[in-house]
């Protein structure tokens, strides 16, 4: 079975090598500021100018694009990596917020270290704002959790 931790490290290493400016957002980032909840997807925010590089970096470790959508000026491009042993996919969303609307996303990051690598995480207010913009029941539940644990 694919290891979520090893894959996370591989993604971060790829992005670092490509000098992509990126940070974790979504459920995993929310768990830093409150209690971890169940989720099945990595979420990374990247700048529009880095999208092509990010896609190439992900392709190099066998993540391939599956779909895309836009919610409130945030483009989300979804990728999967097949786990042949279990016929399941690891899922990853690249969030590309409009920089004129979400300029604050790029400041106030926290960067804890895991396995010798810095893992950048968007600030709590940015996480809440983008989560609310993207919506979805699970996302809104995460936001409710964050807001009651400020």
């Amino acid at each position, binding site marked *: *079975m694919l*290891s*979520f*931790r090893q894959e*996370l490290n591989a993604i971060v290493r790829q992005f670092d090598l490509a000098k992509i400016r990126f940070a974790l957002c979504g459920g*995993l980032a929310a*768990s*830093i*500021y*409150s*209690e*971890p909840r*169940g*989720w*099945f*997807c990595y979420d990374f925010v990247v700048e529009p100018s880095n999208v092509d590089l990010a896609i190439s970096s992900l392709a190099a470790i066998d993540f391939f694009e*599956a*779909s895309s*959508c836009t919610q409130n000026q945030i483009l*989300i491009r*979804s*990728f*999967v990596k097949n786990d042949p042993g*279990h*016929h*399941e*996919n690891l*899922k*990853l*969303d690249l969030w590309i917020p409009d920089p004129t609307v979400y300029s604050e996303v790029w400041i106030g990051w*926290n*960067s*804890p*270290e*895991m396995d010798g690598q810095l*893992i950048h*995480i968007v600030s709590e207010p940015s996480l809440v704002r983008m989560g609310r913009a*993207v919506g*979805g029941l*699970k996302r809104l539940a995460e936001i409710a959790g964050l807001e*009651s*644990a*400020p």
Partner: protein
Amino acid sequence: MTSQFPRDPAVSIEIVSELNRVGRELREAYMQSRRDELLSAFESYLQSRQSISNPKFNVVLFGFQEAWRRNDFDVIVRVGDKLPREWLLRWREPQAFYAMALARVGRDMLRLA
């Protein structure tokens, strides 16, 4: 967005468990990097003579973890007594520290019932 859950329940449990472990490890690293700030805020909770109306999750959790490491259960109980009941009921990890500390100091858990 790719929001669908894995089809195999066993795989779901395995993935969620690993994701939770990674999340907790990252949170621990994050809290350690802000150790002084969190402990200072926790100390202000401890010294407060009023109930804590808007407790910060990471401040309470980190303060409880540190106090537990020192076997300082009284500190956990003193801060826990000032936390809103609804807040304690919502957040399982601080609640667990508080409940265990209450048991260690010989108090019952009526407040959480």
